[in-house]
């Protein structure tokens, strides 16, 4: 109950946000340039790239094109919350359009997506955040010291099928909390995978001249001391014993995806300050080389993967099936004859591994029970990591917690891995806006009209209290705008016309929390309370309703944002943003203002506050004209 303090907090939020808008996240140009939100494809146009797809030298099948479209779409969506458009044109062309100048981003979309089967030889938690900012050494009860090798808790695999048992790749992006640290740390001595011993200085893929130069730059950037320390690592740095162990490697956390990519795989894996985010930002095709050890991310943990013994080309077919005996969905996997022997060899290695093998330890960390796991990697993503349940010499099955849709999804991806579609990048051109400035202006006009209508109505209905609504909406708008500009720069959030419309709609919802509150206030005064005592009471009641109701909207936004892709994701983000900012204004602005209001004389006068009419008097003027408007 310190109106002044709450307003001060709001002021602080404002100042920080606008400082960020003007000076952070790569702000450049004049002041007006820094105030430009990133507009979408439909409003300002952008860049369009054409990719001609081919499959084994010929025209791809319809299905392959569809999967290719999805793969490109997911690559585009990985660039941030920008609403790209991916269209199949004709029978072998994919056209991608992105807002603004996006040539760099479009450049590496055309990498063919390759599938690789790699033995999982190491798992270590993604502890970059804590490695860079170690918790205070005081033994706080929060227990923030992560165990260096605690992967995200994976649901233990179900189904005792006679085949590879898989947890489906977490398509929902759910990341379990850290599991308790497994006791069996891979001893440094056994850091080489049991079979195919790649010598400690694992032969990385030969670097191109460009990459050699980049590597030299990275070395300089990191500094000799940290570089040498990183080269000496034989196992992931264990932060559980020394929370500060990650500090010498702090510089690594500043590397871009391309820079991380030129580091030796072992280094990418061992250095605690390299995060999954950085790994995911590596260029497409970063881990395609079948003869190199690579590092990837799987359900929130960093995983070290052996050379690819089996590749997508070895797959003959993959189909989702409903297992009649168990009633569970499985994915059955057939290999070509040459691939079959390689697969059998790989599964033998995985199945017969003993607890001394690093892959055994790694597998137990992702929830496997007694055998090693083989990671199925498509593009840069580990789509599944089934535990191998036997030496598989015939048709194999991947079981797990599948439903019809997820089984089909995995089968499609496996099939796609079997016949990769290659893309040839066609021309890259600028495209004009489809809607253009006229529509943008119309949208802004609509927003102004909406705001005006809400303002007029609230003045009419709530008289002086209308000013509170009006001011709050103005504040919300300013906050939203600042957030848009900043997020456009840092997250690539693009504002489309649909987004603008969404914000207009949120005006009404924002105004509604006032209606709830003022109606409560009326009730309280109706009860015979004085305005001064009614305000806090009404606030308490209304607060509960407002939070419950807004929780629903936030829930909707979060779920859609996490699950969806493309335009829906952008929309969910906008919706969530506006609701959160609205709540901020409700709590930090309206409430203190009303508290101050309640102490003024004017508020007591029914004429002014619009609340007085609830005090029933005999001389109640008939207000039947109102009902027509309502």
């Amino acid at each position: 109950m310190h109106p002044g303090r709450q307003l001060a907090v709001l002021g602080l939020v404002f100042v920080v946000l606008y400082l960020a808008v003007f000076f952070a996240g790569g702000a450049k140009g004049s002041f007006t340039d820094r105030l430009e939100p990133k507009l979408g494809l439909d409003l300002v146009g952008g860049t369009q790239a054409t990719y001609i797809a081919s499959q084994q030298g010929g025209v791809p099948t319809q299905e392959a094109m569809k999967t290719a479209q999805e793969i490109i779409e997911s690559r585009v969506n990985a660039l941030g919350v920008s609403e790209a458009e991916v269209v199949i044109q004709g029978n072998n062309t994919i056209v991608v359009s992105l807002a603004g100048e996006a040539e760099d981003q479009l450049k590496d979309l055309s990498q063919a997506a390759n599938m690789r089967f790699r033995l999982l030889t190491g798992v270590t938690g993604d502890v970059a955040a804590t490695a860079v900012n170690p918790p205070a050494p005081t033994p706080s009860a929060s227990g923030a010291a992560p165990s260096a090798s605690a992967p995200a808790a994976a649901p233990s695999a179900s189904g005792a099928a006679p085949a590879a048992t898989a947890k489906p790749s977490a398509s929902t992006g759910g990341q379990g909390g850290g599991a308790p640290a497994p006791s069996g740390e891979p001893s440094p001595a056994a850091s080489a995978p049991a079979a195919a011993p790649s010598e400690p200085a694992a032969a990385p893929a030969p670097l191109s001249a460009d990459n050699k130069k980049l590597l030299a730059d990275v070395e300089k950037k990191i500094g000799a001391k940290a570089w040498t320390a990183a080269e000496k690592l034989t196992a992931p740095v264990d932060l559980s014993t020394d929370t500060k162990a990650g500090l010498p490697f702090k510089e690594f956390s500043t590397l871009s995806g391309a820079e991380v990519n030129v580091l030796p795989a072992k280094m990418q894996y061992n250095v605690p300050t390299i995060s999954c985010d950085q790994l995911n930002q590596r260029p497409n095709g970063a881990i395609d080389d079948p003869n190199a050890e690579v590092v990837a991310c799987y359900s929130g943990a960093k995983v070290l993967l052996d050379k690819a013994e089996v590749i997508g080309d070895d797959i003959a077919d993959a189909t989702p099936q409903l297992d009649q005996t168990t009633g569970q969905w499985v994915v059955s996997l057939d290999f070509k004859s040459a691939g079959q022997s390689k697969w059998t060899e790989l599964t033998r290695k995985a199945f017969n591994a003993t607890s001394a093998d690093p892959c055994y330890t790694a597998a137990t960390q992702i929830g496997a029970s007694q055998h090693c796991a083989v990671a199925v990697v498509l593009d840069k993503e580990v789509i599944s990591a089934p535990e191998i349940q036997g030496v598989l010499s015939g048709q194999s099955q991947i079981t797990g917690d599948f439903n019809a849709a997820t089984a089909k999804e995995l089968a499609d991806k496996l099939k796609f891995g079997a016949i990769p579609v290659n893309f040839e990048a066609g021309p890259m051109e600028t495209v004009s806006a489809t809607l253009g400035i006229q529509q943008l202006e119309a949208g802004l006009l609509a927003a102004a009209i909406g705001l005006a209508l809400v303002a007029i109505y609230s003045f009419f209905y709530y008289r002086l209290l209308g000013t509170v609504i009006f001011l709050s909406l103005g504040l919300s708008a300013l906050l939203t705008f600042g957030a848009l500009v900043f997020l456009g720069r840092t997250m690539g959030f693009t504002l489309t016309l649909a987004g603008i419309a969404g914000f207009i709609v949120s005006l009404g919802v924002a105004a509604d929390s006032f209606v709830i509150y003022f109606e409560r206030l009326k009730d309280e005064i109706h009860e015979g309370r004085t305005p001064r005592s009614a305000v806090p009471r009404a606030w308490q009641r209304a607060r509960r309703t407002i939070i419950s109701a807004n929780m629903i909207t936030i829930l909707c936004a979060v779920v859609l944002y996490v699950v969806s892709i493309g335009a829906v994701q952008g929309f969910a983000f906008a919706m969530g943003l506006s609701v959160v900012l609205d709540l901020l204004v409700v709590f930090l602005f309206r409430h203190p203002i009303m508290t101050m209001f309640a102490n003024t004389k004017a508020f007591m006068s029914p004429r002014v506050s619009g609340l007085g009419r609830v005090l029933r008097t005999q001389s109640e003027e008939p207000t039947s004209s109102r009902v027509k408007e309502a």
Partner: protein
Amino acid sequence: MARPGLATRLYQGEANLNIVGRRKLWFTIAAALIAVSIGSFIIRGFELGIEFAGGTSFTVPVATAEGDLTQEEAEQAVERAVTSVDPEAEVHAAQQVGTGDSASYKVRASALTAAEAEEAKAALVQDLGVSADDVSDNQVSSAWGDAVTEKAILGLVIFLVLVVAYLIVRFEWRMAVAALASLMFDLLMTAGVYSLVGFEVTPSTVIGFLTILGYSLYDVVVVFDKVQENTRGITAGSTRTYAEATNLAVNQTLMRSLNTGLVALLPVGGLLFIGAGFLGAGTLKDLGLVLFVGMGFGVISSIVFAAPVLSALKDQEPKIKAHNARVLARRAQRSGDVAPRAERTRPANATESDEVGVLAGSSTPRPGARPTAKRNTSNRGGGAGNRPSGKRR
């Protein structure tokens, strides 16, 4: 005491409209509307936009013999050409691709057969006076990938599960079911309107549709919040049946519901007005339309559908059933020794059917009427009365 006009009583949350009591009527209407909607889905289906159904894309050069084309001219030319072969076809806004001499306009139109596309291309060549080599047509797939739809539906399902869980925790399972029923009703109605009228379904429509989700539930939650407050400890007293208490809550939040509806629909109305009135088509109109229809239904259903469904469900609960019977029995007993009320003068704008408790001889308290007991037993939330008012922080 003279009773004030309906508007005033509405304003004061005392309009006393018997909404919950007419459950059967609302359910009948709702069932009829749902049947019409579903019938329309089956018979008429939906008018899918180019982004969903795919289409034909035409490329025409910017530079022609008669000088450069503007974006608008290109658009109109393609529209003429396409509608000449298929009067139903729609055309999207043109987009300039590339710059300088090689610049061209790309215009997307509804899907055409190969023969139709060829014909349209010929018409276009003739119309613009360019060489046939410079104009190309291509089938394009849907821009809105199946993956986006799938993931959106998945998100929707997860959201509904979570929301039900949340409502069960926050209220109770019956309220969760009623809220969900009301949401489904809104979505069905909106989709039904789209299917019946044949509005085009575009990505904007889908996004608007998802917006309705949150909004429709939002409204219901506000009403249920009040219902919960009014029915807390209802079984302790014996003045009101559950349905009457619910009706009272609906009446008390009626003004708020109407206000909310109005305040939320005003900006959307502005959107629709600008989108459809000034621009004739496009994103703004699509969004404005779906939101206007959906929110409209959202406001109506939170009043006349969600609460009746809730009371119907609650009346099945043994505890409430017993309570209702007790209340009615007590009333019957009391009405025996209460003299019939005199006719009251009623304002002209309130019709007989608007009101409950006006049947002479019944002493049912009007919803919203103050109990005749002392002031502080008022049921209007928060009186320091004898009604347990629950813990509030």
